């Protein structure tokens, strides 16, 4: 039972204090700073709590943390009592004590004053304050060395974050540094730039994740361009991180624009996307860098930026309103290269802008003279000339520190051909693999953190805590059918459950992006399917049989001379969809083969198809589960639960789906039996196991090809007897398969590319409704 705070208070307990904890402390100790305590008591502390508060003070005193700690506590109690519940002040004493043990007395001394600031920032909300207090206690345990610095910055942190975001930020710091206390300290002192970025992310300023979907649609609507938008990695160097960039078929946007908030930040993102769209539309092929100087590269890029914007504004005049407010360079100021470049940008964009500087006037004149036949070559010529002039003016240009202004413009790497550059897709792939390694490393945290992590990070919590990747847990034994003897071999196979490894989430996202239309079609198809108990629909104009009640009423009306109701028929109809689906993926070695007539491997198409189906089903709220299997002889039929029926389809199952890889053999029958045991408990009208496979059961301990085929067939029959449908989507590898034998001629479809999935799925649903 959980007690409400009021009840707790009546019972004389604070929610976090163990009962009787305070009463253990003897009353006979003497308080060090009786004068201060006396003043606090006289002026403000409610009498009802006075005795307990005094005991708390004494206890702190006797614990030997030093005079400073107890003085700080007593002193700030007076201020705190104005803002929060006295019961929380008593609890603060416990937290001060545990901080003193973990982080030392200096941090403990800092805590009461930080608590005052927190109470002010949190506006005295008792629950939130308690959460904050609990967080501090935990943080002292997680990162004792950083406690002091965090407490000192508490006012600033809480000015930007609420408590739950503060928690995420603190945990992000702990996680990014791992067990290395020095790195943790770097993070929390903001010596590590990551800290600021995470803070930006958590502080509720508009981040890329907030606007990603909108930006994608904006790009598509405005320019008809459907390139994937990505967030620049948090690990990228600073100058890369601050600006958008594009190239190789991908567009990268910064995770956040520090300093811009609310509507302005959203506009900045839109302006950035509109600008890159203009490049993609008008810029054409990348320029070779050849022997250009960095300043020339920067200037040619600037002129080219102005050119594409000029063309874009001719097409979409409204873009001027979007872009212009970000040009804030002023005609005065120091003559440094970045400021001159920003002024030139503005001069080329804003006709009302006056600038007396000769170089800028010259740039403007050159551009204006060429506006009518302004192409990329003209940009290159003008940029080159202006670059030379800037050199002659002895204005220093530092390419390493140069950041394009205004903020919405991209870093122009996409404009240039650096010859040795990797394509962005390749970069993404290599980046992914780095991330995966890190993910794997993170799965073995230092001992003192492990408990905390599992409690705090839902996303990373394993589905089943006991099972690790290396050793699965045997969960069930199933018999196997021997067609030669016509009998079952009792408890012949052992199913061992493993936890699936997470993989790159991008796979799922890319699939959904690339096949947006297929997703829509599948969704519509599923939502149109009516799989439920037939219902009788009464009082119809038309129907299969007479609705006797309605007939009687009609006749009564007719006899009494009234207008009879002509709706006297009834019919039965399926109206809803009451269906559980378990998608069972075959991830044996043979799924590494290529699908006939295609460049994709079986397992890739399996995973992509599952991603599409799962997306559609989770969008419609249909219950479904995903599992994968392979086998290493009869004693180890490996079964991976990617998603259970009752877990939501979130990042974890998605990344597990992406992380499946092929290996071992295909003992299909045992896997179907295990999946059947899982879906049997579902209380829906129809239950469906959807097997994705290449249709060749095999295992290395079986030489008779027919043996596993017949066993799988037997398993399918058993399922049918229990009212479970088994249906197979088979990937055609051109090899021998036994689909007809196992599933029956009508219960499988063969596809060789993802796009044909929606064409073939209706058959499955027709089968279910038939």
């Amino acid at each position, binding site marked *: 039972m959980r007690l409400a705070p009021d009840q707790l208070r009546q019972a004389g307990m604070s929610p976090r204090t163990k009962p009787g904890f305070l009463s253990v402390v003897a009353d006979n100790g003497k308080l060090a700073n009786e004068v201060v305590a006396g003043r606090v008591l006289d002026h403000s502390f409610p009498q009802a709590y006075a005795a307990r508060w005094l005991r708390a003070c004494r206890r702190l005193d006797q614990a030997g943390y030093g005079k400073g700690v107890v003085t700080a506590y007593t002193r700030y109690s007076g201020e705190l009592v104005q803002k929060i519940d006295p019961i929380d002040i008593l609890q603060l004493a416990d937290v001060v004590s545990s901080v003193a043990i973990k982080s030392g007395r200096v941090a403990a001394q800092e805590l009461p004053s930080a608590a005052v600031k927190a109470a002010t920032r949190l506006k005295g909300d008792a629950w939130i304050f308690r959460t904050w207090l609990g967080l501090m206690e935990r943080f002292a345990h997680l990162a004792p060395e950083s406690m002091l610095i965090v407490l000192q910055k508490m006012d600033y942190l809480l000015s930007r974050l609420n408590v739950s975001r503060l928690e995420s930020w603190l945990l992000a710091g702990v996680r990014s540094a791992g067990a290395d206390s020095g790195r943790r300290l770097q993070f929390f002192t903001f010596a590590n730039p990551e800290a600021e970025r995470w803070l930006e992310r958590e502080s509720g300023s508009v981040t890329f994740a907030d606007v990603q979907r909108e930006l994608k*649609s*904006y790009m*598509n609507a405005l320019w008809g361009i459907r390139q994937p938008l990505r967030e620049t990695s948090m690990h990228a160097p600073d100058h890369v991180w601050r600006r958008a960039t594009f190239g190789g078929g991908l567009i990268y946007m910064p995770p956040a624009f520090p300093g811009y908030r609310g509507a302005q930040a959203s506009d900045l993102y839109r302006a950035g996307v509109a600008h890159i769209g203009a490049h993609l539309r008008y810029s054409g092929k990348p320029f070779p860098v050849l022997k250009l100087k960095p300043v020339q590269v920067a200037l040619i890029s600037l002129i080219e930026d102005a050119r594409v914007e000029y063309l874009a504004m001719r097409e979409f*005049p*409204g873009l001027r309103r*979007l872009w212009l407010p970000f040009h804030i360079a002023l005609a005065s100021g120091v003559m440094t290269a970045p400021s001159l470049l920003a002024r030139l940008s503005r001069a080329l964009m804003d006709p009302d802008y006056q600038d007396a500087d000769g170089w800028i006037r010259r740039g403007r004149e050159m551009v204006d003279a060429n506006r009518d036949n302004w192409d990329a070559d003209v940009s290159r010529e003008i940029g080159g000339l202006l670059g030379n002039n800037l050199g002659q003016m002895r204005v220093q240009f530092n390419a390493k520190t140069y950041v394009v202004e205004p903020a919405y413009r991209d870093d122009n790497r996409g404009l240039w051909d650096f010859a040795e550059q990797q394509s962005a897709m390749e970069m993404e792939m290599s980046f992914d693999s780095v991330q995966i390694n890190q993910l794997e490393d993170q799965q073995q945290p230092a001992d003192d953190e492990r408990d905390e992590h599992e409690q705090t990070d839902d996303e990373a919590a394993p589905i089943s805590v006991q099972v690790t990747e290396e050793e699965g847990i045997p969960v069930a034994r199933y018999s196997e059918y021997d067609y030669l003897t016509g009998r079952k071999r009792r408890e012949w196979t052992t199913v061992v459950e493993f936890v699936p490894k997470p993989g790159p989430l991008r796979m799922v996202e890319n699939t959904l992006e690339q096949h947006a239309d297929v997703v829509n079609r599948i969704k*519509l198809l599923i939502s*149109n399917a009516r799989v439920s108990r037939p219902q009788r629909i009464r009082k119809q104009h038309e129907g299969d049989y007479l609705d006797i009640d309605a007939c009687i009423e009609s006749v009564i009306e007719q006899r009494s001379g009234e207008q009879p109701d002509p709706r006297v028929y009834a019919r039965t109809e399926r109206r809803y969809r009451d269906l559980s689906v378990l998608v069972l993926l075959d991830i044996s070695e043979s799924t590494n083969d290529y699908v006939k007539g295609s460049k994709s491997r079986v397992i890739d198409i399996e995973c992509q198809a599952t991603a599409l189906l799962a997306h559609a089903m989770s969008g419609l709220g249909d219950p479904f589960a995903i599992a994968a299997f392979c086998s290493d002889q009869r004693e180890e039929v490996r079964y991976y639960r990617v998603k259970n029926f009752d877990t939501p389809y979130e990042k974890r199952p998605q990344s597990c789906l992406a992380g499946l890889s092929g290996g071992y053999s295909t003992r299909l029958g045992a896997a179907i039996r295990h999946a059947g045991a899982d879906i049997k408990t579902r209380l829906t009208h129809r239950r469906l196991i959807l097997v994705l496979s290449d249709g060749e059961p095999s295992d290395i301990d079986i030489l008779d090809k027919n043996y596993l085929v017949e066993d799988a067939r037997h398993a399918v029959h058993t399922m049918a007897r229990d009212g479970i449908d088994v249906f197979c989507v088979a990937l055609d590898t051109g090899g021998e398969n036994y689909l007809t034998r196992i599933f029956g001629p009508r219960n499988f479809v063969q596809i060789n590319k993802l796009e044909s999935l929606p064409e073939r799925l209706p058959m499955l649903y027709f089968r279910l409704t038939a």
Partner: protein
Amino acid sequence: MLLTEYLITREPYYKPSGNEIKHYLAAHADRTPIILKGPTGCGKTRFIEYLSWKLKIPMITVSCHEDMTASDLVGRFLLDANGTVWHDGPLTLSVRHGAICYLDEIVEARQDTSVVIHSLTDHRRMLSLEKKNEIIEAHPDFHLVISYNPGYQSVLKDLKESTKQRFGAINFTYPEPAVEAEIVSRESGIDPETSARLIKIAERSRNLKGHGLEEGCSTRMLIHVGKLISRGIPLGEACEIALISPLTDDQDIRRALGAAIAACA
């Protein structure tokens, strides 16, 4: 003539965007059944109204819906105080007395519905009323036209092959920008410049078809926007009322579309 109330007396405005009128008239000469294919609001219904007026043949429109049965088309016995009385359905009416029967969005109707038109759409040109034990020879003026919107919904709800192959099809899309601008400006009374801007706005939403929107903004929708503008509503607000809000409830898409529209003006 019995169907006088179905005659169209005033000329509907129709601006051809290709040879569709010529094609229709040729098909009509032999009473070849016709499918008008195209997205919603691109002028299918207006086209057939225009031809009905031009040919001076009455036109009976049936909007099909998913609960529609064959009897809704053919007719049924209804109960009245004195017993059962037969009532002709719209299809029977046009077969009996000669009219263009226009079945709007035929795929929405249940599959068995479309089968009743089979005997009317081949050389037999007759309709049998089983319940009434009657066979009606089609009137010479009877012409069957159906419309059909090949969208995503056609995955399950597709016409039967045997139905499809009885028809000729005229494809409709949104007209060329210049033509569409002229239509919008004519129908809503806004100046050509605003109308051209609206066409550009429409393209933005059509880019999102299948990527956030089920369907882009139609010509009909643009005319509604134009009408609001000519009543003094500013362009941005008119687009919000008659374009963005009806198209989607998805906040992200609305914002994206709103921003793209803002870029056009």
